[in-house]
């Protein structure tokens, strides 16, 4: 297992280098000029040229690439062209809201969706199943911004139970953190509950038809034990895959929810950086998200062997 883990981590290096090269070149081919954003409306061509030079953007692309790559191998993601702030510091300022929101969403989703999926499979073909699946279809079909605005209107503006917007670090207390994180987490969870519940239902349904489940029932085990100890555990592999991928997607794809609830997460940082063509920040963010995907996939693969002892590395 250790050797496998090491090999997987090693294999991530060429993936990340390829991503780095590809992203660097792609950004330079995209129209846009950070110097123009900095200089503003009244800049003359001479002034633009001088600002480009001060940012190092007048150098050949290959020189710019190696300057950046040399910093990268030393662990330095560079400095924002626009705000002049180290990229690592900017990511540090934005990562906590995103990670904590993603974790809360996943915990909430799993806590609700897995039992729902199991129950739907257990009561396959009954009104319980149809109800759960209908809720899933609705949850999956309604865009997050609609869910978000409805939740804000009801729980923040009408009932005044929660603030409309903002983020508080968990270091300032679980209460202040939750009061601002609950609505965005519920908003995001509306999709993930639907997704995980459907996947759990399908996986459990498949397992419920297996011989060992029939054997367990024939032994006289209680239905609860059959469902949660035998069926669910064996159905865990595809469910884990969707949870893991869902978590990675949450890290990188919550920009709309971050915008609606004014959460300064990495989705917003990425969009801002793209709109301003802030190359070092975009590059840093894409490397980070690639790293997260590699890590999450590794963790999912490793967890398979925990739930299914037949899987060995």
């Amino acid at each position, binding site marked *: 297992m250790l050797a496998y883990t090491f090999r997987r981590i090693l294999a991530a290096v060429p993936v990340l280098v390829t991503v780095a090269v590809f992203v660097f070149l792609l950004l330079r081919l995209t129209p846009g000029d950070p110097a123009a954003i900095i200089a503003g409306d009244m800049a003359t061509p001479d002034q633009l040229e001088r600002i480009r030079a001060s940012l190092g953007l007048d150098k050949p692309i290959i020189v710019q690439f190696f300057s950046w790559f040399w910093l990268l191998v030393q662990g330095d993601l560079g400095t924002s062209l626009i705000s002049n702030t180290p990229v690592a510091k900017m990511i540090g300022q934005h990562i906590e809201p995103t990670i904590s929101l993603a974790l809360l969403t996943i915990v909430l989703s799993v806590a609700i969706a897995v039992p729902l999926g199991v129950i739907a499979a257990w009561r396959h073909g009954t009104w319980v199943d149809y109800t759960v699946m209908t809720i899933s279809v609705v949850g999956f079909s309604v865009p997050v911004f609609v869910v978000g605005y409805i939740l804000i209107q009801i729980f923040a503006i009408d009932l005044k139970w929660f603030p409309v917007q903002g983020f508080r670090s968990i270091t300032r207390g*679980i209460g202040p953190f939750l009061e601002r994180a609950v609505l965005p987490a519920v908003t995001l969870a509306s999709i993930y509950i639907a997704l995980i519940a459907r996947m759990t239902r399908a996986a459990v349904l498949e397992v419920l038809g297996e011989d060992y489940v029939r054997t367990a029932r024939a032994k006289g085990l209680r239905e609860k034990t059959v469902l949660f100890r035998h069926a669910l555990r064996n159905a865990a592999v595809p469910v884990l895959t969707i949870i893991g991928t869902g978590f990675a997607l949450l890290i990188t794809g919550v920009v709309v929810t971050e915008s609606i609830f004014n959460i300064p997460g990495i989705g917003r940082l990425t969009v801002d950086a793209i709109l*301003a063509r802030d190359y070092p920040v975009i590059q840093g963010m894409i490397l980070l998200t690639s790293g997260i995907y590699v890590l999450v996939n590794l963790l999912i693969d490793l967890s398979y062997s925990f739930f299914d002892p037949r899987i060995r590395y």
Partner: protein
Amino acid sequence: MQTTKTTKPSLLKGVLAAAFLTFSTGVCGFASAVSAETLVVVPHSGLRILDPIITTAHIVRNHGYMIYDTLLAFDADFKVQPQMASYTVSDDGLTYTFTLRDGLKWHDGTPVTAEDCIASVQRWGKRDTSGQVLFDKLESLTANGEKEFTFKLKETFAYLPETLAKPSSVVPFMMPKRIAATPADTAITEFIGSGPFKFVTEEYQPGVKSVYEKFADYVPRSEAPSWLAGGKVVKVDRVEWTAMPDPQTAMNAIQSGEIDYLEAPPIDLLPLVEGNDELTVRKLSPLGGQTMGRMNFLYPPFDNKKIRQAALKAMNQKDVLDAFIGNPAYYTICGSLFGCGTPFESTAGSETLTGSGDVEGAKALLKEAGYDGTPVVILQPTDVTTTKAQPVVAANALRAAGFNVELQPMDWQTVVTRRASQKPVAEGGWNMFFTNWIVPEIMTPLNNPMLNGRGKNGFFGWPTDPKLEELRAKYLAAKTPDEQKAAAGELQAHALDEVSYIPLGQYNVPSVWRNVVTGLLDAPVPVFWNIEKTEE
């Protein structure tokens, strides 16, 4: 076993109870209003650049007014008033001597000196267009001791005080000499001014949050505040700028009391707050902004004067403003290149623009010019609300007159990059783009960036127009207000005839604030002195 069975639910209940208590404490806490000592503001955009000299971005200018001060400033009567310094001028008009007032300190506690101010003016002069005019006329700028410095001119330049008092980008803010020594095209990395607020660097999150604290050692002038002049008396301890990318979120937040002041709400969402008796909706800028279109003079078809004139005749301001702003309460049809409500307001030559256009006249001019159907490539930003509608309306108007128009949608960043390209259209160039200015940025021939004829070294569009330069020089040489106004009028007539640019009207977006906030001042830029806040 029995113990386990009874303990687990108890433990679970305990954890849930603790979580509920903690959570409910937090929830109860949020409902209380933000502290009366802290003013929470949603500005029109996130602050990402901190150097107000390197950029013309308005949010950075506003940040500048928080932490820096100016030598002189405009009051509400368009008069230049002393701010950090007063000045005298010699009889021949060639020597201006400035004296710093007593008690001026930088935020690090050191006194403001004449050398600091000289270094600041020199750095600003390398970035600002009117500053460059000033330096073209300058023989020397020297300190006469700690608190006095002298501008010695090669020729008279009556606009020296106005130039140093200019209210909008780029504003000549004063900085300590060691910071002002930074090359003008490199961003500063230390943010120390002598203004009424101090910047809290530790709490700064680019594009998200900027925090300012009252500068306890700031000595305000004794005069009442008027625009950007007079006493800058700070009445709150702290101002927090929190950027909100979603305008609906900002509207929700001001209604729920989570923020105090929303600088620029979108016009179409104003009905949500206009009837709310806890909120005030009012225009704070007496002049507002001007929206305009600019053509590329380097390439066909707009290298032809008659075709430019046809384009002007094809358009009218009302159609543009209806699409852009919608509510007539927030826009003014104004044919003056220098804006309406300004000293040089003049509507001569803009009758078709302020009327309903002249499509037939435009068609006739196109025919006379021999327009061959060369496509007009219009840059259309799709991600900036304030410049989204104008290209679409203009394209329709031009098509109606017989132009072959190609509207190219793109993000604003691509627009600012493309418009800087002096290449032909086929190689990534353009024919027309639209942008907005606040009126103080275009209200004189000296600071209006579109009114220069210096070809490829001028503003995007690059007209080579010796007559325009001659008229601008005439304005710069004018000594009396009457002479200045006459010169400005003559210049406007020429610029509209040449179609240097197309003014498409004036707009004025109100701000929204909670009624616990009082003392907001009318000014061409948002200012945060004089504001008081009481507990809700």
